[in-house]
């Protein structure tokens, strides 16, 4: 019991760290923040349920007024902004990523990459685009055009999520709760 509380709390902190690290420069030349990578990792490492709870905890702290979103954003304002769909999609993305790793018995790296791509890229962007279309009063297609430039960075992040999850599986085979 204690362990699930600390894992959820510390992975919520990990999402925050990945948004705060200044210009982690994941791949040279591509300006992407690592925050959504943190969301993917919550799912692929902690599994669906704990991963989603960690993301919810992170969002609670953002709503309460901590500037933990990338770029030092936070507070209630971010939930009134057009990008709110991505915030709502974060826990769902982590859940889907974790669910894929738990159910698909492929190699850990492949399953984690697939989970991160389906949850953290596909599902997240679908919810994000719906959010923008509602908030900006645009059609889904028009909103999708706004999201398109970020898909390359998102895909790179899902590859990294797969690699990181795989290296954790190698170093601490029993620590990977998504395959517990």
């Amino acid at each position: 019991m204690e362990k699930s509380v600390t894992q959820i709390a510390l992975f919520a902190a990990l999402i925050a760290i990945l948004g705060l690290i200044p210009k982690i420069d994941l791949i040279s030349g591509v300006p992407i923040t690592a925050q959504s990578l943190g969301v993917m990792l919550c799912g692929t490492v902690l599994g669906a349920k704990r991963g989603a709870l960690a993301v919810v905890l992170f969002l609670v702290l953002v709503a309460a007024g901590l500037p933990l979103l990338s770029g030092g954003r936070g507070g209630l304002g971010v939930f009134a902004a057009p990008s709110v769909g991505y915030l709502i999609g974060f826990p769902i993305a982590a859940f889907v990523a974790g669910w894929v790793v738990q159910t698909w018995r492929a190699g850990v790296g492949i399953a984690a990459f697939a989970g991160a791509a389906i949850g953290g890229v596909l599902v997240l962007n679908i919810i994000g685009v719906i959010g923008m279309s509602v908030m900006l009063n645009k059609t889904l297609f028009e909103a999708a055009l706004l999201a398109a430039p970020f898909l390359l960075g998102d895909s790179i992040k899902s590859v990294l999520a797969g690699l990181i999850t795989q290296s954790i599986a190698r170093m601490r085979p029993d620590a990977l709760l998504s395959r517990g």
Partner: protein
Amino acid sequence: MLTLTYPSKTWAHPLPAGGKLAALALATMGLFALHEPAHLALAALGTSGLIASGGGGFALASLRPLWMLWPFVAIVAAWHLWLRDPAGTAIILRMITAVGLANFVTMTTKLTDMIAVIEWLLRPVARVIPAPRIALAIALTIRFIPVMLQRAGDLALAWRARSPNRPRWRILPALTLSTLDDAARVAEALRARGGVD
């Protein structure tokens, strides 16, 4: 760690957090019910007055978080100018007013008060997850953010001591692994002190 609460007191700081949040929820719903640009302009004007009532420094500080909206404002403005559709004004006014109002509540409410309201709102969840456990998780996350930020910095330094290249993503497996290890150690420490309800 710094919160987004404005440090010096305005008239809105002592108001109960729950009341401010309820008013914000109603006001935001109201904003989405308005479609006439003139009505939304009035709402935007009222919000500006509200923000200005906090004083010059406060008003200046509230402008900063609005900056994140500029890409959306630019795109909506360009799109609707091109279509010659006046509805764009309403969308932009509503977006800025809604975010401005929400920021006003965040800036005038202490983190502890906000967390108290959130815990109150989470009471229905208390059957599944007991309240003390939620409180503990919140406290642990806040405590561990500076610790892990330091850890990330140390890992980057260790990398740089050995490589002429920037660390990039290669420190992330180590950072994630150390998060898992910390979680295991903190759980053990908690159990040694009587455990979690």
